[in-house]
């Protein structure tokens, strides 16, 4: 077997490990092993890459230097990445993932740039000793190499800048507080997209011009920025998933550039994963992908809050709610992102502990878009040592609400709005929601009656079986716990 065959075999093993890693992600215990196997696959692929002909020839020509440089660059990156991963708080996971996606995209751009540069200079230097093996004619137009290089440059640049903007928005940097809502933005984006496609065709037709490639990267960067800027905070989960998918597709495209199947396989697995999560998020928010990317929320006229709430909202004190909770056999807590903002996860757990000590069953109902990225709320609650088994998904827990004595909604709004089920005119009509209104009593902890992301009133707050507790999430939960303990 030639050495290239051994290298390819190593890539094959790495690819299989990646697939197994994804497969093991189906449970929290097996997922730990999956993560290790994924890392092992990556280590194997990276080690195999060191035996590729170009690297070996570099070592033959220059001794240990190329390896030292590779270790320095790779080691520095790994150290920074690991330090970030150990330090970042769990509430900031969406930002961190966005940032990492961005680096992946940028890396793909640089791989494409390096290959393009190498290929171009190879053609010029093919008479040099040792380089004859690489001898290539001038780069032909519209080859796999040319098209893949252009695609990698474009997708990678869009990923990098899109991710940076997403990071700014999620980190709530002042400059990104308001989405970009210039009425001409669609035309600007359209013109930019047309120009980008034209330049991409140019790179494919003339891969010998490095400048043209640079222009494409610049246009891709602009496009990534202007496409992400108008997207509002509530739609960020979709954007994160989409960028995740792009970073994978950029890696797959880079695989086409260097004719390498492990890049193609790993890249397309990630691409598929991101696309699935994007679809799930869109579905959970009842929005089309096109709507998220190009629309703002539709501004249909709806009943104003005053009409819905007039005279029907019952406000309760901590003592009153504590009495209701004392008589309950089964309590379901519905956490929303507001709970994470108020850092109330640990307080909620203490409340649950107190209730459980009295023999009450406590479970948590998690809506798919609770939090700022898919599955985010689960991580935040797991961090507060809430057992995984008690975190129940929407479809699983919805049938149990009629047998629930008290549902406590903390910092959630649109995802418990019965209008989605009852009112076909509502902007959120058809959106899957948690049926908390079917519980015997609903306690809603909220600062005020202000609307959620969808900007519509919530009839749940005015329902007969709803008690409103107006307070900051964390303080409310602490007061409730104290009130129960006093009895």
């Amino acid at each position, binding site marked *: 077997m030639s050495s290239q065959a051994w290298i390819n075999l190593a890539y094959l093993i790495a690819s299989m490990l990646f697939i197994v890693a994804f497969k093991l992600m189906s*449970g929290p215990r097996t*997922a730990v092993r999956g993560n290790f196997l*994924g890392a092992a696959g990556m280590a194997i692929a990276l080690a195999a890459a060191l035996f590729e002909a170009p690297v070996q020839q*570099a070592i033959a020509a220059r001794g240990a230097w190329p390896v030292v440089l590779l270790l320095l660059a790779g080691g520095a990156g790994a150290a*920074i990445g690991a330090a970030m991963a150990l330090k970042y708080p769990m509430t900031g996971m969406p930002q961190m993932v966005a940032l990492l996606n961005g680096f992946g995209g940028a890396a793909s751009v640089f791989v494409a740039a390096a290959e393009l540069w190498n290929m171009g200079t190879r053609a010029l230097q093919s008479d040099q000793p040792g380089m004859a093996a690489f001898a290539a004619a001038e780069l032909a137009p519209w080859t796999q190499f040319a098209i893949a290089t252009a695609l990698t440059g474009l997708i990678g640049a869009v990923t990098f800048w899109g991710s940076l903007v997403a990071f700014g928005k999620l980190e709530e940097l002042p400059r990104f507080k308001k989405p970009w809502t210039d009425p001409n933005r669609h035309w600007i984006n359209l013109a930019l997209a047309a120009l980008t496609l034209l330049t991409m065709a140019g790179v494919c037709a003339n891969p010998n011009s490095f400048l043209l490639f640079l222009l494409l990267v610049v246009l891709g960067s602009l496009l990534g920025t202007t496409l992400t800027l108008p997207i509002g905070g509530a739609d960020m989960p979709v954007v994160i998933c989409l960028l995740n998918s792009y970073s994978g597709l950029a890696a797959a495209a880079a695989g086409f550039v260097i004719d390498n199947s492990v*890049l193609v396989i790993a890249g397309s697995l990630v691409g598929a994963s991101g696309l*699935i999560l994007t679809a799930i998020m869109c579905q959970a928010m009842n929005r089309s992908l096109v709507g998220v990317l190009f629309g703002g929320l539709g501004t249909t006229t709806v009943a104003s809050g005053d009409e819905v709430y007039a005279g029907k909202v019952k406000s309760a004190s901590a003592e009153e709610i504590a009495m209701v909770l004392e008589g309950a056999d089964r309590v379901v807590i519905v956490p929303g992102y507001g709970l994470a903002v108020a850092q109330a996860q640990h307080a909620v757990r203490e409340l649950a502990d107190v209730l459980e000590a009295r023999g009450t069953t406590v479970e948590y109902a998690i809506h798919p878009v609770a939090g700022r990225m898919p599955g985010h709320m689960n991580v935040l609650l797991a961090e507060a040592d809430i057992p995984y088994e008690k975190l129940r998904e929407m479809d699983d827990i919805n049938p149990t609400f009629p047998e629930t004595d008290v549902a406590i909604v903390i910092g959630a709004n649109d995802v418990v709005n019965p209008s989605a089920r009852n009112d076909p005119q509502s902007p959120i009509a058809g959106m899957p929601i948690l049926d908390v209104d079917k519980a015997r009593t609903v306690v809603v902890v909220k600062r005020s009656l202000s609307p959620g992301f969808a900007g519509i009133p919530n009839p749940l707050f005015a329902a007969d079986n709803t008690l409103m507790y107006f307070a900051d999430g964390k303080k409310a939960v602490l007061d409730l716990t104290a009130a129960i303990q006093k009895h």
Partner: protein
Amino acid sequence: MLPCLMPLLLADAAAVPSDPAARFIRLLTVFLLAMWVGFEVITKVPQRLHTPLTSGSNAISGITAVGAIVAAGAVVSSFGSLFGLVALFLAMINVAGGFVVTYRMLQMFNPKKK
């Protein structure tokens, strides 16, 4: 489904066809089959693990580091190697950050029995 992908991947380790179109179609086959495997496997991941799934897949998208090593090694030109080294640096942030943060999250889902 996994076994049916094996012969195809093994075929990849065999001789690479010299006809560019044949080479492209071989790689395209790998791409589409891997996409399909991805869809099959990932739809089975429960919602509560979607954040670790995202960060873990994020780490795997750092596979571009392999391309970076090959590109940096080809010391045909100092610029090419420089781009390759920058790519490797960036990709390794992604790889290490992704795997470590996924590990950290999964530890929270599996608290040590007291």
